[in-house]
């Protein structure tokens, strides 16, 4: 039995920390600076071509190539383009709304997972305060939307564990899993894992699940694969082959994921383990969990574990190009937040059962409090870095890329060919020129066959573009990669002359035009 003041605190404290975190998140967005990632411009170009020319292609009139990551963002941008709404602003709006909706959905998971309101509020606050969130939300990519979908999938799965097998609403889980698969390729693993473990739990009611799973997930996903195979000629997006073609160091993704987990997941887990150990050895008895709550947690852990293992294995040798703000590990932030939610919930449940002397409890209260504050401290420390990154990117776009795009629009005929090495972002989108993407994402030949620098150089001269826009890392001494260095050093490249150069401390871009 709790005192009325404690009951009030139970309500006021969660509301207060979530409100403060939401205010901080909102301030981060308003404060800016704004930017859009290169990949967002790529998706916008596909959407633009689909609306204007009725072709889902990178270059109009050429063979289709799947240089975008997911279809949800593409559909959103296509609708926006069709309605004459700026597609990139639409993508940013989707990202920002998903960020806040994600926090709300995460908080709503506290009840089916059998954890306290306090735990829900802490998890939602960490979700809102994480410094990288704002960068991903405004980048114009599908990251935040994907995160909210994974949390929603998990919520639909844990809610199923509180219903009788085969009874109640079955369709949300397969449909959400399908939306996950449409948003990012690995979404089928995340959504499918939760669905799989729910199906195992409800295996006796397979007759009820069969039509829902078939219509909601299997048929649409199968249709998507068939479309991919026949329209693009592959079972996976070209972005997958482009990353396979590069020689990423083993474990780069795991290191990136480790950095992300260390900041936002590990503190809650450490505090939980320590409190559980102390309560266990001191003989405390926490309130028992209902069977349905145990089931729901089992589904979350197994689903998350399976997703972590499969997706991490598929990324293990990938070259994480433009891995700003731990972008690739961030797709797991929804699942990680659910783990944090359960960890804080268990911590709270066990802490209430602690029978150690009062001074030990006070000491633990302070230590656990600071431990749960660590993610916020890291986020506060990271915030200026995120701002610098966004500001640097935005400044780079304005000073380097926009002048090149303007020059090309003024001096190049619409049928000319541009080669970009490797940034296929704002310049191809705004000039609408036929573009050969040496970043490999939008070029099937480069993604599948050009595994060594000489093949890249040969392909360049075979394509014979009218201009080359190349990214410089240390002036002309070092470009984006070895292929770029060899290209500039090749004797055949003397047919091109330097027309525009925008370099700041060795970093920038150069535009070469055919003589």
């Amino acid at each position, binding site marked *: 039995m709790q005192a009325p003041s404690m009951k009030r605190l139970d309500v006021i404290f969660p509301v207060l920390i979530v409100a403060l975190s939401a205010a901080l998140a909102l301030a981060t967005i308003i404060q800016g600076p704004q930017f859009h990632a290169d990949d967002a411009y790529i998706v916008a170009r596909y959407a633009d071509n689909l609306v204007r020319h009725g072709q889902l292609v990178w270059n109009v009139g050429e063979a289709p190539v799947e240089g975008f990551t997911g279809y949800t963002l593409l559909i959103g941008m296509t609708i926006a383009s069709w309605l004459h709404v700026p597609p990139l602003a639409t993508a940013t709006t989707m990202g920002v709304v998903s960020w806040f909706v994600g926090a709300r959905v995460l908080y709503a998971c506290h009840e089916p997972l059998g954890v306290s309101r306090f735990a829900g509020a802490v998890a939602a606050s960490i979700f809102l305060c994480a410094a990288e969130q704002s960068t991903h939300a405004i980048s114009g990519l599908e990251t935040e939307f994907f995160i909210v979908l994974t949390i929603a999938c998990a919520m639909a799965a844990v809610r199923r564990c509180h219903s009788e097998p085969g009874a109640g609403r079955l369709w949300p889980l397969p449909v959400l899993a399908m939306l996950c698969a449409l948003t990012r390729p690995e979404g089928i693993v995340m959504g499918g894992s939760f669905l799989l473990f729910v199906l195992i739990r409800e295996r006796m009611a397979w007759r009820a699940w069969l039509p829902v799973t078939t219509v909601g997930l299997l048929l649409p996903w199968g249709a998507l694969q068939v479309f991919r195979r026949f329209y693009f000629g592959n079972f996976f997006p070209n972005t997958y082959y482009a990353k396979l073609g590069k020689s990423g160091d083993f474990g780069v993704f795991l290191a990136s994921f480790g950095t992300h987990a260390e900041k936002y997941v590990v*503190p809650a887990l*450490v*505090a939980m383990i*320590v409190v559980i*150990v*102390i309560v266990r*050895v*001191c*003989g405390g008895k926490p309130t028992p969990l209902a069977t349905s709550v145990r089931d729901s947690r089992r589904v979350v852990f197994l689903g998350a574990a399976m997703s972590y293992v499969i997706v991490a294995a598929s990324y293990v040798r990938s070259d994480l190009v433009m891995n700003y703000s731990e972008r690739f590990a961030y797709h797991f932030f929804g699942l990680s937040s659910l783990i944090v939610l359960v960890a804080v919930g268990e911590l709270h449940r066990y802490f209430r059962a602690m029978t*150690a*002397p*009062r*001074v*030990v409890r006070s*000491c*633990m209260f302070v*230590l*656990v409090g*600071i*431990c749960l504050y*660590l993610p916020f*401290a*890291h986020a506060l*420390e990271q915030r200026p870095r995120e701002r610098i990154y966004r500001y640097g990117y935005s400044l780079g776009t304005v000073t380097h890329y926009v002048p090149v795009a303007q020059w090309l629009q003024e001096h190049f005929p619409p049928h000319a060919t541009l080669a970009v090495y490797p940034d296929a972002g704002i310049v191809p989108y705004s000039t609408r020129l036929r573009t050969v993407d040496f970043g490999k994402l939008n070029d099937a030949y480069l993604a599948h066959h050009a595994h060594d620098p000489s093949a890249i150089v040969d392909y360049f001269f075979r394509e014979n573009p009218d201009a080359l826009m190349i990214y410089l890392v240390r002036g002309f001494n070092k470009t984006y990669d070895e292929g770029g260095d060899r290209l500039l050093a090749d004797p055949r490249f003397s047919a091109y002359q330097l027309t525009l150069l925008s370099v700041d401390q060795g970093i920038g871009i150069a535009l070469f035009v055919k003589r």
Partner: protein
Amino acid sequence: MIKLAAGMTIGLLFGVVMAAVVAPYAGMNGFSGHAPAVALGYACSACVGCAMGLLAERQTGFGDRKARVVTACAVAVLATYVLRSLPLPWLNLVWLDGTAGPLAELPLVVLPAVGLMLGGMFGGARAERREARYPRT
């Protein structure tokens, strides 16, 4: 109060002795850098906790010696984790012994701090127990 002060003094002394013993092995980087150094840091803290749990008196409100030792170890590890993870750049102790790193990477800082805290905890628990048995009138 006397119990609390005595406990803290014993903890502090124990931490300082442990730090003096382990500092040469930890080297210039202290408990930072490579995984073995970090593991050494946690192991040393756990040792301080273990010793404090063994030294603590029976009348501290714990069920038995095992509970005292395990609790002390767990608290020591959590305290070390919190100290190591707190981003406190203004507490960088480069001037102290030439090592460049945050406060809790140095054995000479983290181990006495953990010992002090554990000593205070057990001393406080003993005082609390005594207070409950012989309440002031």
